[in-house]
């Protein structure tokens, strides 16, 4: 892997405000972000968080209120979309209905005044890349959703952009197709080496496809990092909640440091690393993934915890544990919990290395 990282896109202190006065909406609040060349970078967040707005600012479909955007070290915010070497795959494809597939894909090449042979060569090349060569003469309305999506991809790739922007391109597809396309997109990015900026609200999609993820909420970046980092070490409760299943347990810090401990509201005393900045007696929130919790049948009758819910999901079971009126969720492989049932008294094994204090 190339050690020298080139900055493909630099987003500096970008703010976007819609409307004016009392009815104005701040879609993005001072966002800072760097995307490297050759990366599959994902903007992840719930609807309305600003991720699509950011994408549109990069594409040039909106004007920026404050801040700067650089593309390979050149400022682009004063350029209209047709002057930016960036291309977009739209959520609902936006294929030109009055042109056939070939013309749709060749559109950019024609606008760039490439010569006839070059247009033909490149258009066929890119149609072959997405396996749509035999559909050249058809019109978009004769294609299925998945086929339209490939054409949209080909159309955006044809002019060889430096960066490809994808606005939730898989959201209109059904599950099986979506899963297949995820693999294809990932391979495509690796093969072409183009920087992909991918927008989605589906955290599973983000985790499987991305080199790095930026989690966005309410116009602000919550965390940027590799999928594993974001999953294992979320910065705050929003990120923890948004990605995967999570337990957020309140408690009181008993002792801070490497061998810290805290008393949870569930009644359990657990060991975990607590930052020095946290004082003894301070209220904290502990973050533990359900799959990190182990349970055993209790030998004594005085256990705090019982099973309050049991859901079988095929290869695993979601077990809901009730302790001191608090709920703890555990996910366990099906073999481990074969003999367990609702109402059983339980001992919980909390993981020391996979529990951490988390900010709001």
């Amino acid at each position, binding site marked *: 892997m190339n050690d020298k990282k080139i900055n493909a896109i630099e987003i500096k202190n970008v703010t976007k405000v819609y409307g004016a006065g009392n009815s104005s909406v701040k879609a993005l609040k001072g966002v800072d972000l760097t995307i490297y060349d050759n990366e599959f970078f994902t903007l992840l967040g719930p609807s309305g968080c600003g991720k699509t707005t950011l994408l549109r600012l990069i*594409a*040039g*479909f909106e004007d920026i209120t404050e801040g700067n955007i650089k593309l390979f070290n050149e400022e682009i915010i004063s350029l*209209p*979309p*047709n002057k930016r070497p*960036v*291309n*977009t795959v*739209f959520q*609902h494809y*936006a294929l*030109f*209905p*009055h042109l056939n597939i070939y013309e749709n894909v060749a*559109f*950019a090449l024609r*606008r*760039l005044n490439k010569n006839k042979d070059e247009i033909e060569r490149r258009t066929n090349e890119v149609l072959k890349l997405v396996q749509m060569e035999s559909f050249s003469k058809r019109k978009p309305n004769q294609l299925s959703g998945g086929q339209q999506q490939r054409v949209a991809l080909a*159309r*955006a790739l044809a*002019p060889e952009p430096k960066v490809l922007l994808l606005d939730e391109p898989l959201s209109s597809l059904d599950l099986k197709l979506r899963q297949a396309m995820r693999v294809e997109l990932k391979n495509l990015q690796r093969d072409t080496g183009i920087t992909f900026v991918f927008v989605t609200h589906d955290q599973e999609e983000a985790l499987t496809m991305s080199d790095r993820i930026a989690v966005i909420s309410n116009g602000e970046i919550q965390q940027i990092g590799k999928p594993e980092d974001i999953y294992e070490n979320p910065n705050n409760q929003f990120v923890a909640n948004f990605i995967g299943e999570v337990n957020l347990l309140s408690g009181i810090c008993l002792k801070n440091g490497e061998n810290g401990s805290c008393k949870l509201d569930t009644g359990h005393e657990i060991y975990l690393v607590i930052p020095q900045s946290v004082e003894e007696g301070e209220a904290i929130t502990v973050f533990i993934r359900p799959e990190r919790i182990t349970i055993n049948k209790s030998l004594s009758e005085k256990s705090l915890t019982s099973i309050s819910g049991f859901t079988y999901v095929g290869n695993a079971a979601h077990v809901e544990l009730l302790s001191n009126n608090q709920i703890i969720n555990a996910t366990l492989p099906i073999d481990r919990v074969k003999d367990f049932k609702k109402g059983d008294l339980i001992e919980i094994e909390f993981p020391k290395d996979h529990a951490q204090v988390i900010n709001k």
Partner: protein
Amino acid sequence: MKLKDKKLKFRHVWNFPGFGGWTAIFFGFLYIPILVLISYSFNAGKFAMIWTGFSFRWYTKLFSNENILDATFNSLIVACTAAPIATIIATFSALALVRGGNFKTKEFSNGLITLPLMVPEIVTAVATLIFFAFLGINFGLINVILAHSVFCIPFAYMPIKAALEAMDPNLELAARDLYSNKSSAFRTITLPLLTPGIISGFMLAFVISIDDFIITLMVAGGGATTLPVYIYSMVKMGVTPEVNAVSSLMLCFSILVVTGYWFLNRKNNN
């Protein structure tokens, strides 16, 4: 008849008895006068309302009637000038009002476009007459063209607005994204997709202009008679079979244009 012999016809809850028959009467009321008019135009007799036999003679007589031919010609000149003017203004207005986002004068502009539809035609006619008289605008057919250009605008506007609203705004963005500049995107994407709407708008404006009577009556000076105004003067003198014939022709023309418009839109919607 025993109960089990009677075939009980199933009726949906929302299917009310008698409404079908009423609707047939409704369409009868709507179309029988038209049919009467057209059939009487083939009346061989001299008295328009007394049927004597079948004949084409009034139609042939029409084509040698100088006045009618002049009036028809005038009607066509007016419609062929006013309809394009109205359509162009309507197209620009639609582009601004549908794609322009929200702006302060938007509601006012929307109101302006519907104004000719809200004001009773007689009021518009009279006001325009007074206006032209005061400004000394007395150029015969041009007066009529000016007046028509104005009130045909809302009719041209409606189909164009509908077509523009049905168009995905992302299409224009996609064109810009793919290195089209503004005018190129308009030319290659917006305009081709809008053209059926523009044609529909033109057809509506054309029909409205051809059919207009009250405004033309008040605003036209001498020598600027259009077909509806001429028909009116003929009716005032007494109903003659010629009037029947020329009226039937006008009716059929309008019906043809509207049917064409309908088919054009059906093809695009499917």
